[in-house]
């Protein structure tokens, strides 16, 4: 067991984490990134369609401005986004994208050499910058390359399991060294890291659902750790369902398919979006499009009466698909056995994005000194009740950068002194030892019988989230879902781990991450049950209308250690720029 020290610890090697790390490194700070996978394998790389910024490069977007981008984002959020923060993101957008270009990101181009932009859902102008349909992959590799250039310390395949909180301040983390843990020693492979600031950038919690586009590692780990450490979660009931996931695998088919002109068709061959969003059609925001698809399915107009509809790109032609959507074609062929050039693609709405997350300000600060968060695991909030496509990649690099700046500003002084005291008093050694003890306790859970299989609990939880907290919700359905979740949370205390320690112990990783997944699911369920309105992605059949008088406010969930249920309180939405109005597309 070792105790490592760096000035700044970044947990998570996706876009938000790497952008924060780069910013701090450029300021001369000793920064280390801890990541469960090599940073180049992070889920940011799966993003396809693009990243929004009012560059006004598209011939039809010459009049675009950051203010218009902010308006579209706020309207898309169903007015739950905090407006000053949203405007800040949109103002930062062009600059951070030009920087990514300067660092080598291979964006697609116009003939005049400028970055190309495509139309996306809910946007008044074509403002989504893209690199074919692999924008996330290109942005991620560009930042990974830049981290190597700057010599940032990477702890690759280190799985963070605990925050170290001393005297009301976060002073570091405990992590399991996946490839270095030799044998079943006393420490079970756990090490401690001490730092003046810790930035959580661990991504979303899509894997609490059985039907998600998200990577297998998107379990919400960082949000769960912060929540357990007393940092509240904001707006967890707002879960985005992407209209177009592949039927069999739920792998994402980018909104860019529709941005490039693809149609959605029901069993009758109708472009049914004309009934739901006559002007925007297939480019309505995701909540509206997903509800439209699900309504068609519920009313029996899914293909062959089944639970899917078609995404039809045949009319785009082979050449355009090869140029703009090559990755989509490969995915459809490999994972669905369908070539979009000649056949319509069967798709179904799937969990896609966690709008809620660790409650932060516009600079990534949480209520816990020393702890910051950025990216999908955080909630500023700029997405409110429904995120617009192309704004999540933007969020990662805008708030990754801002959080890096703020974390550096707050270094020294008390932050440094607290780490010195922690190091002198052996806090790191104790935290790692405690974690090893906890894991060995999970192994002993099997000794007295009555133990629980973590995979059975995980399976039941993900399926019930899909059944009880999907696109349409009502009181009875959600209450039953929450009751079942709370029973699972009880059972999850008795999960049995087969053995501790050793290298690449997937059984341990997947068992340890389960408790946090259940807690995030409970937070989402509790917030959803109490919110008696429909707003953005949270659509209740028993309360079909938005209720600004009572619910123009954020849900703030606090973890209460002795209770199964979180404590909920609320905070008013920050307005000031755009008056809430009815959403029409």
């Amino acid at each position, binding site marked *: 067991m070792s105790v490592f020290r760096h000035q700044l610890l970044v947990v998570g090697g996706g876009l938000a984490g790497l952008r924060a790390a780069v910013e701090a490194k450029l300021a001369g700070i000793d920064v280390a990134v801890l990541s469960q996978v*090599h940073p180049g394998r*992070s889920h940011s790389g799966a993003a396809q369609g693009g990243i929004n910024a009012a560059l006004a490069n598209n011939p039809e977007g010459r009049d675009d401005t950051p203010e218009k981008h902010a308006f579209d984002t706020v309207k898309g959020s169903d007015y739950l986004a905090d407006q000053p923060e949203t405007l800040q993101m949109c103002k930062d957008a062009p600059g951070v994208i030009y920087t990514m270009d*300067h660092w080598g990101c291979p964006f697609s*181009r116009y003939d005049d050499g400028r970055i190309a932009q495509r139309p996306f859902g809910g946007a008044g102008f074509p403002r989504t910058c893209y690199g074919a349909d*692999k924008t996330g992959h290109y942005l991620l590799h560009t930042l990974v390359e830049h981290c190597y*250039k700057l010599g940032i310390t990477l702890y690759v395949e280190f799985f963070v399991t605990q925050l170290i909180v001393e005297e009301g301040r976060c002073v570091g983390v405990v992590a399991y060294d996946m490839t270095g843990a030799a044998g079943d020693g006393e420490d079970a492979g756990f090490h401690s890291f001490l730092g003046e600031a810790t930035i959580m950038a661990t991504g979303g919690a899509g894997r609490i659902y059985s039907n998600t586009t998200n*990577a297998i590692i998107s379990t919400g780990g960082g949000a769960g750790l912060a929540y357990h450490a007393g940092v509240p979660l904001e707006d967890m009931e707002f879960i985005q369902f992407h209209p177009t996931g592949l039927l069999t695998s739920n792998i994402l088919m980018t909104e860019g398919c529709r941005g490039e002109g693809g149609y959605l068709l029901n069993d009758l061959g109708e472009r049914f979006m004309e009934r739901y969003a006559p002007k925007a059609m297939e480019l309505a925001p995701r909540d509206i499009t997903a509800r439209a698809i699900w309504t068609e399915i519920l009313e029996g107009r899914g293909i062959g009466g089944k639970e899917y509809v078609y995404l039809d790109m045949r009319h785009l032609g082979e050449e355009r698909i090869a140029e703009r959507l090559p990755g989509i074609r*490969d995915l459809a062929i490999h994972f669905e056995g369908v070539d979009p050039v000649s056949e319509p693609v069967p798709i179904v709405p799937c969990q896609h994005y966690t709008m809620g997350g660790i409650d932060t300000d516009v600079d990534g600060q949480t209520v816990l000194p020393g702890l910051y968060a950025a990216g999908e695991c955080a909630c500023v909030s700029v997405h409110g009740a429904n995120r617009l496509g192309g704004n999540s990649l933007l969020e990662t690099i805008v708030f990754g950068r801002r959080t890096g700046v703020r974390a550096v500003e707050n270094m020294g002084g008390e932050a440094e002194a607290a780490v010195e005291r922690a190091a002198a008093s052996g806090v790191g050694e104790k935290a790692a030892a405690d974690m090893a003890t906890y894991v060995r306790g999970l192994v002993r859970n099997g000794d007295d019988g009555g133990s629980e299989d973590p995979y059975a609990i995980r399976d039941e939880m993900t399926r019930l989230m899909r059944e009880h907290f999907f696109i349409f919700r009502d009181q009875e359905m959600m209450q039953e879902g929450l009751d079942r979740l709370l029973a699972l949370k009880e059972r999850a205390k008795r999960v049995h781990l087969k053995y501790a320690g050793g*290298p690449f112990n*997937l059984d341990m990783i997947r068992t340890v991450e389960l408790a946090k997944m259940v807690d995030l699911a409970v937070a989402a369920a509790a917030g959803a049950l109490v919110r008696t309105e429909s707003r953005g992605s949270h659509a209740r059949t028993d309360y079909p209308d938005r209720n600004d008088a009572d619910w123009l406010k954020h849900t703030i969930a606090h973890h209460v250690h002795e209770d199964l249920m979180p404590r909920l309180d609320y905070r008013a939405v920050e307005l000031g720029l755009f008056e809430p109005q009815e959403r029409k597309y």
Partner: protein
Amino acid sequence: MPECRLRINRYDPAADGELTWGRRTDRWDEFTVPYEGTMTLLEALFYVQEHLDGSLAFRYCCRASICGSCAVYIDGRYRLACQTNVTRFEGKTISVAPMPHLPLVKDLVCDMTSFFAKYEYIKPWLIRESGDPEKEIPQSPEERKKLDMPIDCILCGACYSSCPSVWYQDDYLGPAALLKAYRFEVDSRDEARKERLPRFDNERGVYRCHTIANCSEACPKELNPTEGIQWLKRATVRRRIFGRWK
């Protein structure tokens, strides 16, 4: 319910001890995995890990062939486990092994340290001499098109594992790192002169490639590192004869 049968090459450092570099154990475990409709090999590995043998180790992340985690050696071919459908084997036992010629961590997990060290050595980042403009650095669609192939590399390591020149010369940079060098050398925005080229203009670099093209056959993204390396060879020759860096 249909079933697939897996035969997995195992390695546990605690039980099997240290292996000579690139060696494998002769320990193979067989598992039978039921499925409905269709199943990827990655899903089958998860079934084994959850229900049959919790100690099985393998890499995973996106399950959509873009992260490069799960490259393994299946029936003698390099494949991404997530992109391989078990139904294609029509009931025959599927042999699953770690990528050959790499040191092992456990079971299907290879040690990628040397792979990433060589990646870093090649300076895989945009090198600029002139200052950056306020907006984007202009690049025409034709210039951008030259990047199409190399930027799709997912760093899975299949090419590196498949290359005989890597097997016999462990200081050879290998196809992935050289493809990355190519990716930046052909980028119209890159202004590197002496920084990167000397790192591959030598016996550790492009001249060790004997155009065997195993890399291009192994690549699960159907990229062509051999082609990129030949381009780099021509660039080094141009520099030697004409003194031109690009």
